């Protein structure tokens, strides 16, 4: 949620300069946030059942999505700062 909020704030700021950049950031952040919600719900269920059944824990898809969101914010922020110059 905090990553998504940060991305949306950045998208809003970027929209002042170019609405296309703002829309691209917002849509990409929305897609990644929805993927994170879906994967984390599934991951919670898998981990809970894996712990009680003595089975392997879920994989690293969720960390990858979170990092993609952080890198999206970082890349978009650099573009935003440089475009504003």
């Amino acid at each position, binding site marked *: 949620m905090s990553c998504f909020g940060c991305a949306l704030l950045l998208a809003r700021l970027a929209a002042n300069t170019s609405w296309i950049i703002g829309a691209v950031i917002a849509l990409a952040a929305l897609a990644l946030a929805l993927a994170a919600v879906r994967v984390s719900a599934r991951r919670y269920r898998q981990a809970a059942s894996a712990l009680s059944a003595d089975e392997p*824990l879920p994989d690293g898809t969720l960390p990858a999505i979170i990092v993609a969101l952080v890198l999206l914010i970082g890349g978009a922020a650099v573009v935003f700062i440089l475009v504003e110059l």
Partner: protein
Amino acid sequence: MKLTERNHPGAGRRWPRSVFDVGTEPDPRFTFANERTFLAWIRTALALLAAGISLDTFVTKFPEALRTAVSILLVLTGAACGGLAYRRWMASERALRLNKPLPAPVIAPVLGYGVVLVGVTFAVVLLVRR
């Protein structure tokens, strides 16, 4: 607890394969501790990103070139923190599975030097502008 891939066929399909295709299942408490460390680095990365964006957007009393440079430094440090956190999560999980020593902390120097650089820059600007 040591669960083998042979005993759990589904375990081989987990991603990234470079992590989960090797070794044996570690104690779940270690896996969860590794994830908590990863999430702590992500929070740090997010704080740095937010600081960089806020500095560029809301702080107007600093010289523009310096403000931009420090903003970009903060944002790049934040992005590096995020990327390196994922690498560290993978390396630690792999080390746990192989029962090897944990990897050296690569992110700590990046964060430490980045924050020191930003702090020194701010201190110099504040002193010069007095």
